[in-house]
């Protein structure tokens, strides 16, 4: 867990960094909601809810622009260094990953609108539900690790990404079976294939956010540290 930072002598600078962190938390909440809503819309085949998710994405994009502007302004006027610099740079990275995650929610929603009926075995939808829960948990844990500057938690998130990948591979195989069983399933299965792919990408963005959290707290890149650990 991170040691508490002392306050800046210049309070307006301190306030700007606090506001930047608040904006990241807010955007994180928005994106978590979008992913959950999109997955629910898919599983209930609720076209109206899916349209709402697509609309909501514009607000997520706007939030990313706001965070980028805040960060650039801090760099230009305050010349942040050390932990402050890492805070500002990772804020830009995390906002970018969150915006991409929002796009994945939008993709899910777009596919949902194109699916006419859910005609596969219930076991498959349970699998999608399970994968959604898993990536939502990963995303939440990554955002928590970032907000609390918790390097151990960030490492933990990265370690769990394999599970998401395994889920994705398993659902991919299942969809392939349905398509081979009955060609009438192909159209629906292709849409669902893209949906699972989107969910897998959300897992990757969660990993990126966790890596940013690790860098924010330690000043080192997680990838390099892992490689060194393996070499020891």
């Amino acid at each position, binding site marked *: 867990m991170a*040691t508490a*930072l*002392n*306050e*800046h*002598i*210049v309070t307006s*600078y301190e306030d700007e960094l606090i506001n930047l962190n608040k904006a990241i938390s807010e955007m994180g909440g928005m994106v978590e909601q979008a992913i959950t809503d999109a997955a629910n819309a898919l599983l209930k085949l609720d076209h109206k809810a899916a349209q709402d998710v697509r609309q909501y994405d514009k607000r997520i994009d706007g939030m990313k622009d706001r965070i980028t502007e805040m960060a650039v302004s801090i760099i230009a006027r305050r*010349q*942040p*260094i*050390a*932990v*402050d*610099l*890492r805070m500002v740079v990772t804020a830009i990275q995390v906002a970018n990953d969150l915006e991409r995650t929002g796009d994945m929610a939008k993709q899910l929603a777009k596919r949902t609108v194109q699916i006419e009926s859910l005609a596969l075995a219930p076991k498959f939808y349970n699998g999608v539900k399970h994968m959604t829960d898993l990536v939502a948990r990963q995303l939440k844990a990554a955002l928590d690790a970032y907000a609390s500057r918790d390097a151990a938690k960030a490492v933990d998130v990265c370690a769990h990404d394999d599970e998401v990948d395994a889920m994705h591979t398993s659902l991919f195989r299942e969809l392939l079976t349905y398509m081979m069983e009955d060609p009438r399933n192909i159209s629906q299965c292709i849409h669902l294939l893209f949906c699972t792919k989107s969910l897998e990408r959300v897992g990757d963005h969660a990993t990126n956010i966790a890596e940013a959290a690790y860098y924010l707290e*330690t*000043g*080192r890149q997680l990838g390099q540290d892992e490689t060194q650990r393996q070499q020891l």
Partner: protein
Amino acid sequence: MDTLTGNTRVTQSPDVTSTPVELSKRTTRLTARDVTVHYGSKQALHGISIDIPDRAVTSFIGPSGCGKSTFLRCINRMNDTIEGAKVGGTIKLDGEDIYDPSLDVVELRARIGMVFQKPNPFPKSIYDNVAYGPRIHGLARSRAEMDEIVHSSLRKAGLWQEVKDRLAEPGTGLSGGQQQRLCIARAIAVSPEVILMDEPCSALDPIATAIIEELIDELRENYTIVIVTHSMQQAARVSQKTAFFHLGNLVEEGNTSDIFTNPRNKQTQDYITGRIG
């Protein structure tokens, strides 16, 4: 300075982001071990040990009264001139103890030059300001040789183009930034190995500062430079190694890029990021 566009060039050589390996490969020019300074009964430095790398810029940062200038002045024995100052420990230049009683201090100060906070040209001509050092050290045997030293020093200090037609005019008539470069030319004229700079840009505007920083970056190819600065950004820009002083102690030293992205010590972090320590 680009005369057409008026833009100042501040080149960033690739070395600025030198990795720890690269910096540690450099040979050490100056070695300080357990250096203490007392002004009367007050102890100003508590055992400073640091290696200053050759042909690189080392910056000393820290709050006022932290001892960074005191330590800088130890390096060319300027503290000898302060009554009641007592220096302990050892400082070696190329393995040679600079506090050795048999050492000629005047000769030492030619090897270790100094540039001060406020430009302090002599009330003499531009030419004589630069020629003064070589003259007292007998470095030129003829007028032609002296001309050569003066011209090349002014060139190295990046001042030649601006003053070549008015070498006989008083140095005090130049602008602040030009005066500071004149002082650097004066320091270079005696072919020093080390140049110490005590806040050389604090009295200059940003453009004059950028020109001096560009000059420092060029000079480090041939000289070992130690700079004391209150501007953290300046230390980050010009130096390869940074040392943070606090209350007469050396708190942390390391590669500049490490100190400014990921300092190990909390005191260093609080200071460089402007936090309440």
